[in-house]
């Protein structure tokens, strides 16, 4: 499956505001809001590299693809 079809998603209720994804995002896409929760501030800049998902300790940001739709 190609990267363009992946959708960047967040689960703010699991986010603990550690800032790892913000720091390591190569395109400066992400920010923490005033409650220290993750927000996708500049979605158009995202290159879907997956580095945010890779090192998020809390599974609170991830790329989702169509392949997941039929999984339980």
């Amino acid at each position, binding site marked *: 499956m190609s990267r363009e079809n992946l959708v960047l998603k967040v689960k703010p209720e699991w986010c603990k505001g550690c*800032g790892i994804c913000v720091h390591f995002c190569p395109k400066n896409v992400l920010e923490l809001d005033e409650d220290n929760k993750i927000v996708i501030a500049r979605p158009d800049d995202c290159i879907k590299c997956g580095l945010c998902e890779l090192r998020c300790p809390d599974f609170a940001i991830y790329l989702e693809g169509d392949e997941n739709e039929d999984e339980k």
Partner: protein
Amino acid sequence: MNKYVKKYLRNDKLAHMWCPGCGHGIIMHQIIKAIDNLGLDKDNICVVSGIGCSSRAPGYMDFDTLHTTHGRALAFATGIKLANPDMKVIVVSGDGDASAIGGNHLIHACRRNIDITTIVFNNTIYGMTGGQFSPTTATNDLASTAPYGSIDRPFDIAKLAAAAGASYSARSTVYHANNLEKLIEEALQVKGFSLVEAMSMCPTSYGRRNKKGTVSDMLEDYKETYININAFNKLPLEKREGKIEMGVFKNETYPEYTAEYQKIIDRLKGDK
């Protein structure tokens, strides 16, 4: 939801209890990815832990799981493996759990070369109990039990396992998470004792006291400090200062404990 989370974690138990920026969640993520890559039968995996923040991981993992006593995960795992030789048995342990109170179990599990994969979550501190030094705390680091700096010399767990007779031993860090996933995947395929030491940050009980900055700073430190063992060995001695090797330290085949045990059973049955 992240597809690995959906498939391999107990979603009703999340969010997990680890502190913001604790590296342990990154390691748990790589373990379930490695399991998925190999297509292992989820119902034939048992994950065993001792006590510590790291040892809380199996509580979130949707396999057969066992949360035992401090340092004793390998003893329980040995029993599980001998009773179920075809089961994939994975031990999750902290640096304190694996190399302090459980150090003796570790070296003898290596020596026996029993087919268990152990992932050591090494944050070089007793995280759960508030930052006492562990056998992997670096000399001069501060700990609640070393307010003026530790004078102990640290264990190198990956090399310890290799010297004690394990078939496979490797080290990576949560910064190098893709590499960590690959090493865990490799370790899970070894027939014998395999150990992966995963360097993990504990901002709460280690980072703060040692003024290591933010968790992102701690990850940047891993990037700077850890280099592949082959590259390390090519460095002139004076350039090795401050660097630590990562990668595969050992990958050899030895007789495996449960297989040797089965041979005895077969032989005695044949004698009758």
